[in-house]
């Protein structure tokens, strides 16, 4: 009994920082700063900021599958598309259905989560490259479906005349409005994925990533755990899709190509796999870089590609590697042992 008590003391000492506020304050500074500075920005930079936040949230969501569980999903855009089309179909003149935004946010995210589970059941027995190829195929299937299901989705012409979103009496129409919404989403999703990472579920996912067979040998139901990861990840992707459709007020299959999936994967690979801070930094870089390179017109994609290659060569684990996550920051600033 005595040895247990003695063992528990350093355990919590190493796990939790002595003081919580310095780390919490440092992390809160980012959304607060965004909320203060954001609305004063001109329209164009503000739109870019919105896109950065949207991709950051997408990156946080995809990180659950790719970063934590180590399963390469190249079709994440499918979940995003399901969310976007949910808003486009349930709040537009298309079928003259006009559901409230909060409800569609829930429906879209849940449908995407369900799609994640349905996709996961057959494909999660696959590993590595095979899984990547099947998910890529799924992404394409959803896009082709949207493209050809004319009666429902209007095909390649897409759906216009989408409703303005209202959330609890607050109208979401300008880029400022979406800034507030996206910052709130970022905070919620950030806390959500951080919580997953620190919980037993995160431990199980890490074990699956490191050595799936040994994880099973330790009693982890790897299939179930991966399904849960897929569902959570898809849910977040779906929620992002709903917000995207509400922001653009127009959706078409063009917005959901393989390129989009690739950008989201790049966001987390460049930023740092399995690190929530990495998703933020990666999104900032990947959205900002093409805008900064606009001056080079024709050479833009060339420079973009070169910049990515240089980053990956210089930092193969991404800009911020896995261990320097939010828990590390809390310990670092809160005086705990690192």
């Amino acid at each position: 009994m005595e040895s247990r008590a003695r063992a528990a003391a350093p355990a919590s000492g190493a796990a939790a920082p002595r003081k919580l506020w310095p780390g919490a304050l440092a992390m809160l500074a980012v959304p607060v700063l965004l909320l203060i500075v954001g609305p004063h920005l001109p329209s164009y930079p503000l739109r870019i900021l919105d896109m950065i936040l949207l991709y950051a949230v997408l990156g946080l969501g995809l990180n659950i599958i790719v970063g934590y569980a180590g399963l390469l999903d190249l079709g994440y855009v499918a979940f995003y598309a399901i969310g976007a089309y949910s808003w486009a179909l349930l709040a537009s003149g298309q079928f003259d259905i006009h559901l409230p935004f909060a409800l569609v946010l829930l429906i879209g995210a849940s449908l995407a989560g369900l799609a994640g589970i349905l996709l996961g059941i057959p494909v999660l027995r696959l590993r590595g490259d095979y899984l990547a190829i099947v998910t890529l195929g799924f992404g394409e299937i959803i896009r082709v479906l949207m493209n050809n299901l004319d009666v429902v989705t209007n095909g390649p012409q897409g759906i216009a005349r989408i409703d303005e979103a209202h959330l609890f009496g607050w109208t979401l129409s300008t880029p400022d409005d979406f800034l507030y919404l996206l910052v709130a989403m970022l905070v919620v999703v950030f806390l959500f994925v951080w919580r997953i990472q620190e919980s037993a579920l995160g431990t199980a996912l890490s074990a699956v990533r490191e050595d799936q067979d040994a994880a099973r040998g330790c009693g982890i139901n790897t299939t179930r755990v991966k399904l849960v990861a897929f569902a959570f990840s898809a849910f977040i992707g779906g929620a992002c899709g709903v917000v995207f459709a509400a922001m653009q007020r127009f959706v078409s299959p063009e917005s959901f190509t393989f390129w989009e999936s690739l950008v989201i994967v790049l966001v987390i690979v460049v930023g740092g796999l399995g690190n929530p801070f990495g998703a933020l930094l990666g999104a900032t870089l990947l959205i900002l870089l093409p805008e900064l390179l606009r001056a080079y017109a024709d050479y833009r994609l060339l420079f973009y590609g070169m910049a990515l290659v240089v980053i990956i060569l210089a930092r193969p684990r991404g800009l911020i590697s896995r261990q320097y996550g939010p828990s590390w920051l809390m310990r670092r600033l809160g005086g705990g042992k690192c």
Partner: protein
Amino acid sequence: MLTFDHVTKRFGELAAIDDVSFEVKPGVITAVIGPNGAGKSTLVNMAAGSYGVTSGRILVDGVELQKLPKHRIAHAGLSRTYQNIRLFDGMSVVKNLEVALVPPRVGSLIANTFGLSGRAAAEERRARCHAVLDRLGLAAHAERQAGSLAYGQQKLVELARAIVAEPRVLLLDEPAAGLNHGETEQLKQHILALRSPDLAMVLIEHDMKLIMSISDTIVVMNRGQLLAQGTAGEIRSNTEVQEAYLGQPGAIKDIEAAARGRRNRVRLREGEGLTWHQP
């Protein structure tokens, strides 16, 4: 109690295990020995669910393991270490142990994640892990990355991970392979300290000195068949065993020397292709 009941395993035409039956009783250390290719590792891999059996049954306290999905075997009370270390290299030592304590039901896993009864349970899991690390002298390394530890320490972490969930059957697949003399001595003390009336221990080892000094009962395998079973003294004087090891009856000293010569010092991860061949 672990029971092998008329177990046979065929790989194509080859019978790797041929109608083997024996029991591993709680409270004692049972060693399984035999020349290379005798089927020792196949036995462990079948019990742990990595291979299926061709016929026969393997039971833990009456529960037939082959009817369970692999992850349920751990919950049935059987855990193992690996011949080639298989730690979760990128995770800390204490997290490696926590994997073995993850709640089995997905519902409770999700509830745990979102703080419904989670904190206390997580604290308790952590405390259990630290208690085991303490016991094996690994407390100082708890927060280090498992992959960064020395080989001997990694072997101990694997042992810690195998015992943290308090299994009823523990399979140790060559725990002393690659360890130096001092480390082997330390491992021996740890294994002896683990002996308890609730735990059935199976030890697969090439280090005859270690086996003879700590095993309560020894099972000798040869070419997939059970050759002999008995105490260290009985096995030493068994002429069949001597023949299996040396091709002719000989003194136990020679058996130990022959076994030492067989010890594989090159350790590779499974599937890397290089295998060690007997001269």
